[in-house]
């Protein structure tokens, strides 16, 4: 599979890998198409303005280069943002931030944004 520079960077040197001890919420999703699994851990805090923001975020991924790169990218995008903004992150945004994904790998970006949304959902259910 031919990946661009930015995908390779996030794949070979992913950011925010791992778990958070005592996270505020976890989002887990599996992909029936290719068997990939992504877990996103979040820690939520209040900003000076009193809005809820993602203070810390980490991920673990079983998947291909694109799945790892999109996981890394989405954690970078979400970090420090308000929950309202994070909820609006689309899979297209993730793909664009990576300068585009191969068409057949677009489902990987869905998976990453789904995992993040699930984490926020789980947080809000609490």
């Amino acid at each position, binding site marked *: 599979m031919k990946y661009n520079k930015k995908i390779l960077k996030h794949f070979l040197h992913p950011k925010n890998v791992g778990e958070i001890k005592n996270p505020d919420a976890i989002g887990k999703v599996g992909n029936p198409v290719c068997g990939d699994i992504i877990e996103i851990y979040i820690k939520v805090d209040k900003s000076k303005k009193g809005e809820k923001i993602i203070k810390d975020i980490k991920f673990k991924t079983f998947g*291909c280069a694109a799945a790892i790169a999109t996981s890394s990218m989405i954690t970078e995008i979400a970090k420090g943002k308000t929950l309202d903004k994070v909820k609006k992150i689309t899979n297209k945004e993730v793909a664009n931030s990576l300068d585009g994904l191969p068409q057949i790998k677009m489902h990987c970006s869905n998976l990453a944004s789904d995992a993040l949304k699930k984490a926020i959902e789980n947080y809000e259910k609490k």
Partner: protein
Amino acid sequence: MPLKIVDVKSVESENNILRKFPIFYHTNFRRIVKMKVVYFDNAATTKVDERVIRKMLICFNKKYGNASSKHEKGREAKIELEKARRIIAKSINAKSKEIYFTSGGTESNNLALKGLFFQNKEKNHIITTKIEHDCVLNTCKWLETQGAEVTYLDVDEKGFVNSKDIENSIKKKTLVVSIIHGNNEIGTIQDLDDIGEICRGKNVLFHTDACQSYTKTGINVKKQNIDLITLNAHKIHGPKGVGALYIKKGTEITPLFHGGNQESGKRSGTEDIPGIAGFGKAVKISNFKEVKKMKELRDKIINGLEKIPLVNLNGPKTEKRLCNNINISFNNIEGEAVGGYLESKGVYTSTGSACASNTLKQSHVLSAIGLSPIKVNSSIRISISKYTTEEEVDYFLKTINKIVNKLRKISPLIIREKSKK
């Protein structure tokens, strides 16, 4: 120009440069510094041997005639054509007249199966396995739309077909048993002697696709009772686009191509003399010394990989495995990701993972030997060649260890496995 091969030490220093200056991850960088390429995808195709290229060059610019022409240039070409045919015939203990040149493995398999099916109106049953190459499976699927009945036999967990199953599947209408000799993904070598004997006993034709095994393990059409064999050049350091089909004397097939009646009418079209002469040369220079060396390196890789925790070798671990094939699943990580990291270190492999396929379809071979979908997705195939060196193997083993550790740290599955225990 082939890339200059540099030693392992400088490969490491290049990786240090890459770490310090990630901007150089651009693939051009590798071309600029002429980074060493460790090519471990020889089951896909191989580098053409220099001696083969020399042979082919002569046929391109000196002996460029059409083998059907009656003048000197034509005769020159014809001599090269027949020389190659003799070499290939001899290598499988066949007669020259029983070798028909084609455009490669895919055409040979198509010609064998479709050719037999259309020739024999009274028999329509084909027996094959679930671990054939796509060009056999898809030909069979298409033939089903044309009125053929196909039995796809299961294989055991090492990829062997059970000869009892073959015997039991043969019926009155059975035309041919087509079984791959050396499997391209997991390296399993089927027992041709055994299958050939069953087919002869039951009076059905026996075809084998020997693209991966040719010149690596002995084939003897007389001893093994084989009626048709698919062979090709580019897996054995010959050119791409050339293959052959052995058809036992007296076996009739309907041709796929009609035209000038080249290849005794079984395959019309001007013969690709450079390719065919190159094919002959590749067969001529192949030898069992190289096979022995590959076996040693293969076993070194297998032993090295099995030292990594939670891995499974796919396919057999005996003499019944192709000398150049290793297929392994690393639990909890994805084969495509492993391949991607390996590529960043200059090592080229392939994977049965759905993620690496253009259709997101998993390897049908690994599924057929009973691997779970996750295990299939965790597999990589390493296929070495006569050019593989001990240094490359050492570099690979060192590199793969680090990669597996790194990816397992990213994987969410590993914790579950620990907590289960």
